[in-house]
């Protein structure tokens, strides 16, 4: 039963104690689609994508990734995490391992790939993110932009079908944002299914198939970038865009 849907969220609700973080979120992502999610802080956008690989648990509704439903079943969670890569705001590289070891760890222990093979694949992806010569260094010896590119390569080494980005450039200096965005644009052009929480509106305009605006745990507006930026429908979206594009 192969269909073209990569991710499906149906009526997803989530609470942190009393706080209602996600309110009835519905979303369909097709294979190869690039989606940018934006919205004010606390709007639930990070929480939503963190639910997709079960870093957070949802309490109501259904999340179906790659035709596998996310439940408490550890087997399903393992299967989905293997297919879904994630890049974090603060990189979260393993500081006690070299760049190469960071990239080989999961393929070797999760996919049971021989070390030689894992290293070959890792070097391939490190070439792609343009830092093969740093392979023997430790994360602490790299700049923020370099670390984030390593983090992207580390995720790609698992050969995921879907990539999630949780504000990948928010912790970076302005001159490093470009190198990370360039890497992401290249990845988008290769046909990867991507969900990206970001405030980089330039990136959204060039890459995204759809832009989603969230506020108060709800999806307020969802449209093509063209429509979204030029003719925002919702008042809240207009206000947000005027603020974020002003400077």
């Amino acid at each position, binding site marked *: 039963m192969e269909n073209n849907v990569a991710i499906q969220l149906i009526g997803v609700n989530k609470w942190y104690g009393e706080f209602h973080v996600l309110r009835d979120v519905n979303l369909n992502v097709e294979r190869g689609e690039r989606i940018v999610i934006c919205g004010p802080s606390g709007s639930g956008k990070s929480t939503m994508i963190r639910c997709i*690989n079960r*870093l957070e648990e949802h309490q109501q509704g259904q999340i179906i990734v790659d035709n596998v439903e996310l439940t408490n079943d550890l087997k399903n969670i393992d299967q989905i*995490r293997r297919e879904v890569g994630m890049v974090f705001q603060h990189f979260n590289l393993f500081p006690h391992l070299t760049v190469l070891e960071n990239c080989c*760890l999961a393929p070797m222990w*999760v996919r049971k790939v021989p070390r030689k093979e894992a290293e070959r694949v890792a070097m391939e992806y490190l070439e792609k993110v343009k830092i093969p010569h740093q392979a023997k260094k430790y994360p602490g010896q790299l700049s923020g932009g370099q670390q984030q590119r390593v983090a992207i390569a580390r995720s790609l080494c698992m050969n995921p079908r879907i990539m999630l980005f949780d504000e990948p450039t928010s912790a970076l200096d302005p001159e490093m944002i470009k190198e990370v965005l360039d890497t992401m644009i290249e990845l988008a052009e290769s046909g990867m299914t991507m969900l990206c929480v970001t405030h980089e509106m330039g990136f959204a305009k060039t890459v995204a198939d759809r832009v989603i605006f969230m506020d108060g745990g709800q999806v307020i507006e969802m449209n093509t970038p063209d429509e979204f930026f030029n003719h925002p429908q919702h008042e809240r979206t207009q206000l947000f865009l005027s603020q974020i594009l002003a400077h």
Partner: protein
Amino acid sequence: MANATPQAAPSKPSLWNDPQKRGILIQVLVLAAIFAFFGFIFYNTLSNYAQRGISTGFGFLNNTAGFGISQTLIPYQESDNYWQVFKVGLLNTLLVAGLGIVTATILGFIVGVARLSKNWLLSTSAAVYIETFRNIPVLLQIVFLYALLLKILPSAKESYSFAEAVFVNKRGFYVPEPIPQAGFDWTIWAFVLAVALVIVLRWIARKVQEKTGQQWPMFWIGVALIIGAPLVTYFMTGRPLEWSLPVLKGFNFQGGIRVIPELVVLWIALSVYTAAFIAEIVRSGIQSVSHGQTEAANALGLRHNQTLKLVVIPQAMRVIIPQLTSQYLNLTKNTSLATAIAYPDLVAVFAGTTLNQSGQAIEIIFMTMMFYLSVSLLISLFMNWYNNKMALVER
């Protein structure tokens, strides 16, 4: 050119205002004062010794001790000299320190991990344990446990017995003593070979994983080999091991091994006390690894125990080891509290009884201090080496 001003050599301050020279002068004065002070003490001590007819030096070590010791790991009798007493006390101290370090580490890691458990009962019990035992002076804990044990335990005649092999009473814990017969060597060799084999297999397993990606269940293979091989050999060679069981004869037990209650009390009390600190160290070490690390590992598909083994523990150990060292040192030094319950450690038999009998206070205290200093420095040295090994992994 005769009038040319000399090249800007800075004018020299007076001797007293030159910081460098002033510093040297002060150091010389202080050093002289210190020498004078210790010289005075040394001279004073010597003349006091002479007045009381006490000889100086380490000659007294050859004198006969003339007292018994309740636990000796090496042959000792009352007619032996003080040097032998020193060795007996030293080994007794090392015994309880070694036992304590092992059990405190195991207990501490268990309680520390339990403290972080999501299970309310488990984490609360661990918290209560930690806060109770680390906030009561260890001397009180030792004395209390000793008094309690002596109250509870029966006399020799009414010993608690377990399967007629283990007996417990006020005099101690009696356990069977294994006596190897001819042919038991094979079992020992089987054990040694199994250990060597496991080391080689581990190496091969790593190579296999690197080549093919296959992982062997090395932990279980290791356990099976190290326990199984000696056991099979033991039965195949006709069980060449006899047990000397403790038997009540008259008022006392004969045969078996007697563990004195003082050792048990000191061992338990020091382990329990130090484990409370180690638990906190383990907790803080694990918590020092940011949650992002666990999330990244999970997002990559690593399982819970893989995340612990490959990501969290290697990083936590860097925080844990240096603090663990100081707890080991504390435990070793705390063994000197043995005196309070008359466990025959170095302080009790040497810095206590021997000092009282011979009066050689300075030599004896000096030797005792030197012993603790060397043991502590050895532990530090080892732990620093281990720490460097772990830290090198990072950079």
